[in-house]
């Protein structure tokens, strides 16, 4: 099967934070729990031969539906925001083939850096209503939170644990080309 290189103009693409979302999903009790982060920076650098994605997330901006849970997520039991205020992601050799994205990189959570496979899709750039070039990037990664020291759990009556170790990270990003 042949692939065609997506026509992404070379340059720097910065996040439109208002129209982007960085969230996570994790199995908890009988379903899937979701949360997101509000303070996120992402930069995509593209050249004729490849691309680089760099992102930082402020742990203090974690957003869930209960203020007590927000506080717990920032505590040493979970992300330990005081000691590790940022989550980071860096992928140097990003492949933008056709509409798909392969962005193997390194993710840093709670001060621990591990390799991570990130995949996703890319929408072709459009010109938005204000004359900016804009593209959409959807990325997904799966991590084992215990590899990063995020170990909190609580047992169920069955002896199973309430919170899954597997966490899916979901990024729905809109990026605007720098002038």
């Amino acid at each position, binding site marked *: 099967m042949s692939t065609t290189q997506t026509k992404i103009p070379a340059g720097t693409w910065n996040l439109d934070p208002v129209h982007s979302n960085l969230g996570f999903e994790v199995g908890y009790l009988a379903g899937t729990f979701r949360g997101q982060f509000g303070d996120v920076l992402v930069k995509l650098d593209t050249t004729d031969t490849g691309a680089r994605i760099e992102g930082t997330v402020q742990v203090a901006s974690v957003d869930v539906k209960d203020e*007590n849970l927000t*506080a717990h997520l*920032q*505590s040493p*039991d979970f992300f330990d925001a*005081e000691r590790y205020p940022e989550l980071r992601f860096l992928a140097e050799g990003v492949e933008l083939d056709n509409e798909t994205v392969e962005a193997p990189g390194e993710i840093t959570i709670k001060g621990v850096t591990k390799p991570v496979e990130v995949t996703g899709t890319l929408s072709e750039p459009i010109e938005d209503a204000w004359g900016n070039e804009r593209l959409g990037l959807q990325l997904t990664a799966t991590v084992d939170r215990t590899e990063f020291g995020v170990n909190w759990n609580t047992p169920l009556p069955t002896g199973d644990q309430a919170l899954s170790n597997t966490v899916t990270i979901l990024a729905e990003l809109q990026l605007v080309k720098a002038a």
Partner: protein
Amino acid sequence: MTKVLAISGSLRDSSYNTMLLRNAIELFGADVVVEELDGLKVVPPYDEDDDGDGAPEAVRSLRAAFAGADAVLISTPEYNSSVPGHLKNALDWVSRPLAANPLRNKPAVVVGASTGAFGAVWAQAELRKVLASIGARVVDAEVAVGHAPTRFDEDGTLIDEDLREQLGEVVDALAAAITERAELARTAA
């Protein structure tokens, strides 16, 4: 000057946990001021209706003691396999509101004594879980003084050398956690 709030979870005068706490207090360096919490007995049962600006005086004093400390050291007995109710109740008051409570990110360490064989290990484990849930930076260290009546002399000195060594390690670990947090704050400033 570094301040540590020391709490005995046992109220009776000749408590082995108070003895253990005071043995630990003596092991801190000269640069640490340790305040023993007074007034645990007069903290009323937690009632959200009583909280807020009109919180009882005993609760305001309790919260001020936690707020003024750089770290917390607790020696807990074990009542029916768990934390004594009055100690848990006091921590419940301190924990509200959770996002701004004075234990948040504060180093805390737990030790314990019991007249039985196990040295309050279950109460200690429960208490560590409670402290972590409140947001404290729980130090991963333990001293379990079982058969407590045989471990102290008549002056209340811990006479078991192994336990004294463990207690020293716990105190050192708490002091290290305090120093690390202070350095973090300096770096961030």
